[in-house]
């Protein structure tokens, strides 16, 4: 249960010398009563019971109009986040020009086109039907068909995907019929996503729609079992700033074979073949858990949650893989790699820690990053005072154990749940139930994510879908040493004289994953919290306005 603002426990836990309940009351004070009631359920003072239970946090619910939050739309989650990083699909945005334009190269997903034989890379391009008013009136299917034809004629891609924007759903274009027709005509894979911006309550709906689409149209098309030991997929890692490259480097060192990556540095060919892997690793639980679940049901590939953000978390995640495959060769290799990589990380951490120790951070970003990055701050000796997701669900906060308790509201019900059954020929449980139980007894959890809140201290503030007003208040009240969010929040926070680290785009830096990434992050946070610029805001004459003497001409 969420604690009401006026229901005061006998003795409050202090948060950075503040009473979090009072802070919460202050955040809500200015809101109209209905808004305050709603937001009260999304602002929670954390408390972890001995059995790991945490308070309920209302999340994945509609944003209050006019409050100014961080969220984007369904299209952004589908095209921008999940499908955007795949280099060899031509992604056509079906709609007016803006949506395609804003999602053109802005997410910093790096890719290496030379790692696939054909070298295709369409990520530097933006494709749009640039819908005009005549299509709004008479329908856009004809133009879409022609656009797919022109994309094929000009570029000869392996696959074309179509993404619907708001007006497409409203005027009723049958994007999927157009795709089927063009697929038959061109002989390449053509598929569509009904990811209109108004669907769901945030990007999250788009992630789900993207997962469904890839699963339906691509996964399982290529059954070739390629060479390599310890064959895994990495899910929910988007290679922002080269994160996936660093993780790939570690896999390679450990002798782990990466079959596919969803979807950083990815190719559609790898998606088609991904069901042949023996284990799915989930980084960003929110955006990709659907594919993992469906792959397990249909093909028998189990999944485990990993986190390569933070050196300790990286080591732990590599050990999980070794534990799963349970072979001496891999276990030794993983331990050797960790032993070789850690000294440089520890040295870098020790070097910056005197300047970061005890500093206070706030993180409001994404559906997993606000959780994962607390690891790196902890390694720097920094405290997280408050954190929250932009588009997370209760399971991302409280853990998947609450899944049965989550009520499906109208906004979520509109997002299709695919009916998945075991594939009659290809379903192949990678490990037996007995093996699973044995591994679980050793501490390897399958299909499990404990969420962010159980790992946060009591009294910290967990806030879902943070508004601009609340951001402003938190900064005035706590004056944190660093605030983590995205580009829209960056300068509103920095105008207060407090550095903001972008955890979507990394402020054009990175990688921050893995061991090398941890070192980069330590140095970056050291730079940001130690920068001299924050002392320059007052001019000498503002510090000492008095005049001690006057210059005068004799």
């Amino acid at each position, binding site marked *: 249960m969420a604690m009401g603002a006026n229901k005061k426990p006998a003795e409050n836990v202090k948060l950075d010398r503040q009473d979090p309940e009072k802070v919460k009351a202050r955040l809500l004070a200015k809101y109209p009563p209905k808004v305050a009631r709603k937001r009260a359920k999304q602002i929670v003072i954390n408390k972890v019971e001995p059995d790991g239970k945490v308070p309920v946090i209302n999340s994945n619910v509609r944003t209050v109009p006019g409050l100014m939050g961080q969220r984007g739309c369904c299209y952004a989650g589908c095209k921008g986040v999940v499908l955007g990083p795949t280099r060899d699909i031509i992604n056509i945005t079906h709609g007016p020009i803006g949506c395609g334009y804003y999602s053109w190269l802005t997410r910093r997903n790096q890719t290496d086109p030379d790692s696939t034989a054909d070298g295709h890379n369409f990520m530097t391009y933006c494709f749009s039907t640039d819908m005009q008013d005549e299509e709004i009136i008479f329908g856009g299917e004809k133009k879409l068909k022609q656009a797919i034809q022109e994309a094929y004629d000009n570029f000869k891609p392996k696959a074309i995907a179509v993404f619907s924007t708001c007006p497409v759903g409203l005027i009723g274009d049958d994007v999927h019929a157009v795709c089927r027709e063009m697929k038959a005509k061109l002989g390449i894979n053509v598929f569509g996503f009904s990811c209109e*911006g108004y669907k769901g309550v945030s990007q999250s709906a788009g992630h789900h729609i993207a997962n469904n689409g890839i699963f339906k149209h691509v996964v399982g098309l290529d059954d070739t079992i390629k060479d390599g030991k310890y064959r895994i997929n990495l899910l929910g890692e988007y290679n922002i700033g080269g994160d996936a490259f660093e993780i790939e480097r570690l896999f390679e060192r450990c002798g782990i074979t990466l079959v596919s990556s969803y979807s950083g540095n990815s190719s559609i060919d790898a998606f088609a073949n991904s069901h042949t892997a023996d284990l799915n690793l989930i980084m960003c639980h929110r955006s990709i858990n659907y594919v993992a679940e469906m792959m397990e049901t249909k093909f028998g590939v189990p999944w485990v949650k990993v986190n390569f953000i933070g050196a300790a978390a990286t080591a732990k995640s590599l050990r999980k893989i070794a534990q799963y495959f349970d072979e001496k060769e891999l276990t030794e290799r993983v331990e050797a790699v960790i032993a070789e990589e850690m000294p440089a990380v520890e040295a870098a951490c020790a070097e910056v820690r005197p300047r970061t120790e005890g500093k206070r951070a706030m993180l409001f970003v994404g559906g997993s990053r606000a959780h994962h990055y607390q690891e790196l701050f902890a390694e720097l000796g920094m405290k997280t005072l408050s954190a929250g997701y932009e588009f997370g669900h209760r399971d991302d906060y409280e853990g998947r154990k609450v899944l049965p308790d989550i009520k499906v509201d109208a906004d979520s019900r509109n997002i299709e749940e695919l009916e998945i059954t075991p594939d009659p020929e290809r379903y192949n449980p990678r490990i037996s139930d007995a093996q699973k139980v044995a591994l679980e007894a050793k501490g390897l959890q399958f299909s499990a994510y404990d969420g962010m809140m159980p790992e946060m201290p009591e009294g910290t503030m967990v806030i879902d879908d943070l508004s601009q007003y609340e951001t402003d208040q938190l900064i005035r009240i706590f004056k944190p040493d660093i605030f983590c969010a995205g580009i829209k929040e960056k*300068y509103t926070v920095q105008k207060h004289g407090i550095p903001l680290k972008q955890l979507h785009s990394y402020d054009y830096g990175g990688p921050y994953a893995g061991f090398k990434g941890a070192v980069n992050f330590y140095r970056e946070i050291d730079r940001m919290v130690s920068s001299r610029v924050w002392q320059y805001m007052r001019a000498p004459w503002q510090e000492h306005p008095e005049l001690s003497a006057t210059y005068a001409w004799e």
Partner: protein
Amino acid sequence: MLLRHTSTEIKERSALTVNPAKTCQPIGAMYAALGVHGCLPHSHGSQGCYAYHRSALTRHFKEPVVAATSAFTEGASVFGGQANLVQAIDNIFSVYNPDVIAVHTTCLSETIGDDVPQIFAKAMADGKVPDGKFLFHANTPSYVGSHVTGFASTTKAMVDYFAESNGRKAKTINLIPGYVEPSDMAEIRRIAESMGIATIMFPDTSKVLNGPLTGKYKMFPEGGVTIDELKKSGSSTGTIALGRIASMPAARALDAKCKVPCEILGLPIGLHGTDAFVDTLRRMAGVSVPDGLNLERGQLVDSISDWHQYLYGKRVAIVGDPDQVLALTRFLVSLDMRPVHIVTGSPAGKKYIKSLQAAVAEVPEAVNIKVPGDMYLFHQWIKNDPVDLIIGNTYAKYIAKDEDIPLVRHGFPIYDRLGHSYFSTMGYRGGLRLMEKLLDAILDCKDRDADDITMELVM
């Protein structure tokens, strides 16, 4: 290669836009609204729209860009957005307390046919608009025109909602600066004020989107045209609209509504563009041009003569917004440079194309012009017929790098360099700065390519 699939073979396309040189109306509406003092722009659509627009504007200006959204869900898209907008208006005034909310529509709310004035009436009837606070709106469907259209419509809406004639003519001159940088708006005003002219400029994003770091965040910074000034614009002596595409609709509306005569000019880029602006100001206000401006003009002419040899005959490809592209083209031609590939992403009409053709009439070779076109075609033209220099926004750097051609960034968006919001490219001083940028690009390239024998110390 960054754009490895761009071929030299140009195939006619009628449906697929590749690498657009324009974006959608609402972002222009948001930018214009930020040029009103104490104004919170509001996007009447799903929250993706405002998230994208705020992100794009923030990346360009490196400044806070505040705006709100009606946050449409599927239900609102079916039943209409009235409840969302009324609730948003209530929340915005309760929590953020702006002087004015500027609502712009999106493809979503336009397609379902939401009637914004009717929703405003409802909000006022429900008591959601406190005394002394204002609302205004512009219809900015994303499937018509471009970001420039959205800017133009929102600027016009300022006139439609607020301008009034009090029957007496004031000495003020209205300046409508067009979809230009905050630095440009400040420079346009400085030129007029240096002539002793009192001005009302709208919109005015200077000091809003190039504000200082003081440690105190102000959601509504000190810049921007006030509602009071907008009201008074109906009593000014005249209006000078800079940029026909971005500024003419507002100027014409003011003429029709309050009988304020207007002059529609090109953007004051380069010598002749600025001459036209200064001369119009002089005649409209009945003042003489001060020595200071004559000095600035003379310095620009002097520099053109000093550096002409490096500019003469250089072939340039230009991509951008119509008003900028036309003014830049005229400036380049005046420097004896040769704009040979010209693309605007925004549609701009037949009259515009004629002006552009007239501007390049004396270029001694064939000139490719596409209005509207995209950057894929632009790149194909460059591949087929390489140039010495590219002028365009940040996206053009992918072409510049692939083709190894120097790039001068100009227009919107510029995501990757400092300067545009602080240093104007308008007026005589701006002309000098633009020339400096052109020369730096050309001469850096010349130095880089010079061999050990022909390297020049003095240029």
